[in-house]
């Protein structure tokens, strides 16, 4: 509170928790001077559900459905991270075909997540129509994934030791059709969005993150890659069958919003490449490891497994005490780290930029409030 007689220069603006562009219940407390932000403090925890605590009270299988709900946009990567961690802990071998299926579905899911981001981000910037085009494409992916996983959003598909349902020819044909379709659509996105002068003006040199900042804040995913650091778990700590595919890690140069946008767009193209190769090389064989015990009861120990989700590094850290329930599961979620840089890059920008920056971080708030 300011003293009487003293001129009040700044004021507080509550951005959220109910605001059209906070994507969930995130509140940012803004200290403003006119339309300029002098301080931004994100306030999280509005949607806390206690996933980690839930893990301590149920056995290993029973925690599976939770993984689809931490980050609902790239749920399969979470499925994968958790399953791989438990497989590491118990020494289960996953058959090759299952690994391929996992990669195909996870990459499809990554594209779906990026598509949704592009659409929702453009919505933040005030363009409505690209949102619907993205959703039109994303709908195709959901239909495909629906065929194998049985759900359209909060997937619970991978199991310890493999996957429960095999993919069929129709799914593969659908995948190939989708690859052609999306490749054809990139030009439209280019014309409609990437080359659009208004879009360029809104994103070029806004929200610049330096390499040093990336490292200091522990950013992951498109956030670091946009700043020019080629850090992608799929390459730097390869897991599953990713080393067998030929794909690139797109990086940006300046670390601004535009670069992050381009990284995501290019990543979609790379994911398409991975899917194509995986479909070509898909081996025959079982989809489930033999002798998966009915009750998972790993020996005491701890394990960490990281995977690359659409937003960055998801790490699953499990401590087992040799019980059927995990002693502790810690989920390292990318959005939490990525959001932490907001106070630093939001200073001295306009409200409109804040919307643009916040959008470019691609936070999934339930993931932060896990």
């Amino acid at each position: 509170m300011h003293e009487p007689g003293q001129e009040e220069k700044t004021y507080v603006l509550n951005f959220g928790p109910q605001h059209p562009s906070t994507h969930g219940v995130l509140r940012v407390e803004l200290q403003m001077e006119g339309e300029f932000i002098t301080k931004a403090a994100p306030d999280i925890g509005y949607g806390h559900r206690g996933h980690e605590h839930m893990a301590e009270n149920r056995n290993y299988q029973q925690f599976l459905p939770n993984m689809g709900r931490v980050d609902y946009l790239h749920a399969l990567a979470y499925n994968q991270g958790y399953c791989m961690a438990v497989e590491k802990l118990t020494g289960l071998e996953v058959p090759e075909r299952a690994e391929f299926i996992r990669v195909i579905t996870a990459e499809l899911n990554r594209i779906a997540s990026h598509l949704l981001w592009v659409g929702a981000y453009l919505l933040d910037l005030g363009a409505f129509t690209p949102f619907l085009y993205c959703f039109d494409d994303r709908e195709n992916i959901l239909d495909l994934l629906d065929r194998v996983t049985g759900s359209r959003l909060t997937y619970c598909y991978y199991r310890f030791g493999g996957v429960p349902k095999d993919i069929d020819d129709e799914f593969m044909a659908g995948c190939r059709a989708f690859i052609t379709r999306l490749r054809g659509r990139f030009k439209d996105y280019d014309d409609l969005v990437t080359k659009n002068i208004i879009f360029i003006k809104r994103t070029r040199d806004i929200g610049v993150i330096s390499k040093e900042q990336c490292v200091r804040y522990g950013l992951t995913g498109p956030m670091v890659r946009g700043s020019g650091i080629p850090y992608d778990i799929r390459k730097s700590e390869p897991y599953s069958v990713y080393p067998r595919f030929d794909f690139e890690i797109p990086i940006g140069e300046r670390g601004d919003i535009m670069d992050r946008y381009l990284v995501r767009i290019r990543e979609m193209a790379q994911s398409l490449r991975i899917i194509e190769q995986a479909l070509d090389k898909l081996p025959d064989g079982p989809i489930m490891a033999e002798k998966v015990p009915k009750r998972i009861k790993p020996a005491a120990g701890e394990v960490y497994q990281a995977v690359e989700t659409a937003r960055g590094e998801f790490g699953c850290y499990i401590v087992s005490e040799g019980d059927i329930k995990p002693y502790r599961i810690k989920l390292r979620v990318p959005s939490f780290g990525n959001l932490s840089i907001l106070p630093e890059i939001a200073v001295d920008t306009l409200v409109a930029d804040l919307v643009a920056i916040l959008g470019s971080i691609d936070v999934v708030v339930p993931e932060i409030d896990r």
Partner: protein
Amino acid sequence: MVTYFKEILTGFYSLLAGMAVTIKYFVKPIVTVQYPRQKLSMSPAYRGHTEFVLDLETGTHRCIACEMCARICPSQLITVEGVKIDPKKKVPRKYVIEYQYCSLCGLCVESCPTKALKFSEEYRLAGFSREDCVVDLLARLQAQQQRAGLAVTPRPEARREEGEAKPEGEVKG
């Protein structure tokens, strides 16, 4: 000066290119489905709530009331009450799921030793109360049998000494 005009021109051109895209889609046919006038068919893997598999050989379900599904369910929403109809065979007298808690993970379906469960293709699952979401799988199976013209599996009576022979409450199927 040159850059100034160049920027205006390229900017203007980029706007036109964008407009060309939207007008292209403007004349394309629509892609949405006018629910409820049009409906899509569910994919074969679609997960509605669970239901009993109607075994065409026996004309009834295959559940042996082993409660495996009830035990694995993360949300503990399955209630199975079995009754022994002869020393070797046990059948469920009551199999009720409280669908509102279900996360559609599929663990129950996979864990069932006799493959007695499957996912239905039911997608109109909204209700006004929790009770609306409670599904009695036996009643559902009976309705299904009726429709297929099969003999309806009766609800087995509990034996006297088990004491709980009261008729079931108001449970919707």
